[in-house]
């Protein structure tokens, strides 16, 4: 197995195209797959040290003002960045353990595309866009279009996730994340949920709700969003959101939980995340 350390993302894309290699970012998922014998790549292309792919900063994109997150920014940096919306920080904080968060990257969490990835639902509610690099150039994919199945994405064979862009408008909304796992520490989500919204004059708008581990891919709950849009916050209750939440999800029984439990808990987590948003929303947004 060759170990390649490109000095730029362009070189990484060229190496990926010209080899049978795999991209190595933090390695917290890939090393497990290699140890399990699930993958045995001909080469590892280590992009973890590429400064251009690290960090969180304000930028201008074709779509306007954004917060740009380098794909190799560690989960720990995401979890502690004051520049990022609450739900994304909370989601990052829920990933694995401190050790995993210090190595793992947000790009890795996204590209691994596990339905239970804790940054995915937050990114969906923030209308994040993923900038993909290949030797032919870049293209931008909406987070809602990126995931196609468990551990499957639209990433082409020679493509690398270079940046994650969060529209400034998303940062102006209040947001929150909740998860539940099979234990309290170092848990894999049985269900996770993120909510992002704006409140003006006691009414909600710009609502995004996304959930993980309850379908083959992280899902937006558009039905629920429609039900809540424009409503006064006082009208929201557990009972009121129950049907629209359940209609949107397709949980299964597996080694980590049961479909029934996931259904019930999704309702609760969405409600709690919503309640936290409302508790904090003052129209000023969250990015500092």
């Amino acid at each position, binding site marked *: 197995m060759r170990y390649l350390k490109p000095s730029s993302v362009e070189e990484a894309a060229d190496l990926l195209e010209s080899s049978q290699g795999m991209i190595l970012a933090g390695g917290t998922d890939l090393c497990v797959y290699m140890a399990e014998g699930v993958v045995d790549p001909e080469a590892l292309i280590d992009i973890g040290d590429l400064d251009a792919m690290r960090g969180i900063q304000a930028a201008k994109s074709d779509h306007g003002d954004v917060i740009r997150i380098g794909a190799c920014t560690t989960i720990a940096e995401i979890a502690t960045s004051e520049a990022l919306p609450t739900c994304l920080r909370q989601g990052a904080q829920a990933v694995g353990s401190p050790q995993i968060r210090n190595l793992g990257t947000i790009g890795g969490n996204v590209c691994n595309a596990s339905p239970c990835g804790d940054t995915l639902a937050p990114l969906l509610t923030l209308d994040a866009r993923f900038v993909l690099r290949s030797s032919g150039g870049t293209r931008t994919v909406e987070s809602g279009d990126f995931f196609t199945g468990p551990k499957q994405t639209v990433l082409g064979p020679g493509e690398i996730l270079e940046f994650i862009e969060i529209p400034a408008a998303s940062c102006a909304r209040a947001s929150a994340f909740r998860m539940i796992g099979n234990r309290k520490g*170092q848990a894999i989500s049985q269900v996770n949920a993120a909510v992002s919204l704006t409140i003006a004059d006691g009414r909600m708008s710009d609502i995004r709700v996304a959930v993980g581990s309850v379908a083959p891919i992280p899902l937006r709950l558009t039905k629920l969003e429609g039900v809540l849009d424009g409503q006064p916050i006082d009208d929201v209750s557990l009972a009121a959101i129950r049907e629209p939440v359940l209609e949107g999800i397709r949980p299964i029984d597996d*080694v980590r939980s049961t479909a029934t439990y996931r259904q*019930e808990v999704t309702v609760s987590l969405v409600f709690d995340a919503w309640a936290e948003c409302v508790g904090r929303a003052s129209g000023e947004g969250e990015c500092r």
Partner: protein
Amino acid sequence: MAVIGKQTRKVDGLELITGQAKFTGDYRFPGMVYGAVKRAGVPAGRLTGVDAEAARAIQGVVDVLTAADIPGPNLIGVLPPFDQPLLAANEIRYAGESVALVIAETAEEARRAADAVSVSIEPYEPILTMDQALAPDARKIHETGNVTLSKKLIKGEIEPAFETADVIVEGTFETSFQEHAYLEPETVCAVPGRRFTLYASCQSPFHIRGHVAANLNAPASSVKVIQASTGGSFGGKDDVATEIGSLACIAAQRLNRPVMIAHERKESIIGSNLRHAARIRIKTGAMSDGKIVARQIHVLLDGGAYASESPFVTMKTLIHAAGPYRIENVAVESTSVYTNKTYCGAFRGFGVPQVTFASESQIDELAEKLGIDRLEIRRINGLRAGDPNATGQVYDQSVGLLETIEEIAKQPAGSEQTTDDRYVYGTGYASVAQGISNGAEGVDVTGASVQMSQDGSVLVGIGLTELGQGSRTVYALIAAEVLGVDVDSVSVRLVDTDAVHDSGPTVASRSTTVGGMAVHKAATEVRTSLVSMAALMFKTDQENIELRDGFAILKMDDSARIPIREVATAAYWTGFPVMNLAFSKAPDANFDDETHQGNVYIAYNYGTHRMDVRVDRRTGEVDVLNHFAAHDVGRVINPLGLEGQVEGASLMGFGLAHMERIRYADGIIQNANFADYAVPSIKDRIPTTTIAVEDPNPTGPFGAKGAGEPPVAAAAAVFANAIADAVGVRFTRLPITREDILDAVRGRDDG
């Protein structure tokens, strides 16, 4: 007491805290090669062929062994029937069964080559439940059938007693398989030579020595087992250590090279014993004043593919199922059965957690039915000194159950409860008794040596193992107390089968009690020499001498003192023996084999727990707000060690009760890793407060009784009772997961 009862640092802590301690996997020898086994991968079938051609072609592979390559009988087991092969020869009885051993230059090459071994198995329809195993026309997993052992306990006559009872409660309770999950996976390293040296992460080195020698077809004296630092065991490093220890020695003999076999985590779960799953039918009859008049209990234990310690666990459940109560009429039947799953054996608590959950759940049901306070019903029925227990054994002292109940009764009430209807609160109680020593499971002998050097330092040797539980510290404290020296001047040697005496297995909470007695006895002999010498030096009688603070002191004149080291030097040159090898033999168990009436254990540890919980009605999440664990330990030797045992065992019981479940699908374990098998993390810890009751035990050193196991059972049972109190629903299966709790909450709300 000079040192007994004082908070003492672990005497072997320094090397552990610095990372210098050598665990088996830390040894390196020139020319060392690594072994990995190929496992069957199917739960049942006939092995028709092993093709290792592809494996042998892999770079680094030096040897592949199958059953035909075992010089000896190719059998292991903790006790008769020895029914487990090192490598399967014909029958495949569980999916984790070892079929071939691959030896290679590196561990990774061995692992890869083991995967490349191809096995041909004609599969049978696997027997995956106890009901399937016990069906009249069931395929026999072993020639002897599918029942490993079935025994009865009969005290009094239950039928007339049930007829007179004012109330009767009946129920069936179930528990799941539990994994030991010690942090260090099983590891051995065999070094060949004129004699074999086996370094092992293990619990009972002499037991391993016997099996290794038998399977090598060599005398026991040709094998030396050294217990390396061992990263936890909890009952789990017996059978499996004999299995891989024997395999490593056989390979080392063939190759004349050192061989290391280290299990991966997955193998540690699927290829070594688990705690028995159990189904317990229990019926209790009582009078309206709360007095229990009869109990009838049927225990079924799923022992998996091999006997391992199933016979002993069967006996333990038989004797403990009726609980720590004075009941005149008891009938218990305990049966362990074979199934095509990972074999089950010893695991801290040894069957007592399973039956205690059933028994204590039903005690609460009885209290509710009778309208009697839950602690009061335990008070009414709890064993006192002089009461015959379920086997009719009477202790005239060290029966501290009632004191543990009173200690629990006087703990402060739980913290303030919110009025938020999202949460419900509950409090549970549970009592336990757990026999100390091998008892019904066999003869109980321990040998220990104590020697004092001329400089006054002390070396203790014993064949019982330190596994993290702090037994070395206990032995050091006992020797220091007897010899009047500082605990820091006592060393406890590693267990090396060449250098210490066979002390039996490190099991059954017997280290402190039985092992401690042997150390006490040996130290007392050395003390006699020192006192004799000091008397000569002071020109006085022996009764005027005491040993204290590192001096021989004249009792009538505290200033007249001679340093122990000078006494030791003089004793040596005078010819007084300053070394002694002593044996401690617990009184033999003596009971009727048909009824199990008689004297079984040298003592029992008694305990009562209280747990306060808060349950989230929306998610089933549980917060343990308080946990009080009171145990009659006879005498506290080291409070720090005792608390560590009670806290650790309690969290293990909590895991059994709430979080941990081995999940099978078609005979294959689905969650053989730490992501999906949920061992409690630090965020899941429970706030255990240890309360020691000291009712001295005449059969233990300074009155001490073991305490390592009993909290597991009590903590599991108290959790179930606390959750039942909070939710208002009786749970009959462990673990009681968040899913179960939420189901119950919703069922109750809907109803």
